[in-house]
């Protein structure tokens, strides 16, 4: 038998000795559950961090500014509506010949 054949035989023996090992059937499911828990915990942590951050007055500047913008826009809209209403009234009065 040549040395190449001997080596091939030995490698075949090695392949059989080191046969792949099947993981337990429930390992995949357990791992998946663990990963889901991990992502849910991360999401909860993020949510609670956001809530905690809102309790700190130093983090209020941006929401306050956003609220101010919202209030400002609302006030401007009301003012525009009043102007439009006034203009409409004037137009209606002028049509009546006043």
């Amino acid at each position, binding site marked *: 038998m040549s040395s190449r054949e001997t*080596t091939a035989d*030995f*490698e075949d*023996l*090695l*392949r*059989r*000795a*080191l*046969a*792949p*090992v*099947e*993981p*337990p059937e429930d*390992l*995949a499911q*357990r*791992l*998946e559950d*663990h*990963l889901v828990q*991990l*992502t849910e915990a*991360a999401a909860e942590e993020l949510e609670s961090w956001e809530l905690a951050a809102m309790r700190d007055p130093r983090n209020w500047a941006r929401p306050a500014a956003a609220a101010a913008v919202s209030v400002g826009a609302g006030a401007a809209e009301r003012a525009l509506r009043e102007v439009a209403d006034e203009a409409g009234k004037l137009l209606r009065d002028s049509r009546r010949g006043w």
Partner: protein
Amino acid sequence: MEDLAPEAKAELDRDFSDLYRAHLRDVYSYSYYRVGNHHDAEDLTEQTFLQAYRHFARAQRESNGRPLRPWLIRIAHNLAANYYRDRARKPQTNLEDAGTIGELHTTESLVEGREELRNVLAGVQQLPNDRREALIMRFALDMDNREIARALGRSDGATKVLIHRAIRQLEGIVEEKAA
């Protein structure tokens, strides 16, 4: 995990799910042959995938489409090294003690070559770490030289030499035992 938009996160999770379904057996086999018992192999496999999940987005980005199996095995390899460091203070279990042959192999191992397979496995355990790991990757996981090189952080050439020397040394150990 990085902060990602929900759609990107869902796609990443799907890719990761594919990855671990495709390579669960590889990681488990590698872990088993490194630590020598099913209980610790399960633990090591789980830790490997949890760690992989944390760095998956980056690994996927940096892999440029190359297979991620060597990256996964490298994580298992590093975790197994930590396992051995921790185990330095505890009794060690080897594959023979764990009754590996009987558990691992089905009909093939029950034929006359069983003793020979046992000697080969015992010989694998006697090899230096890098040689043993290279043989596990080659024969248990069927990885090619390039994949093994990536997993071990070596060049392709150095890996080829490593495997060649590991086989030669193992042959010597087995022959010596048989004589």
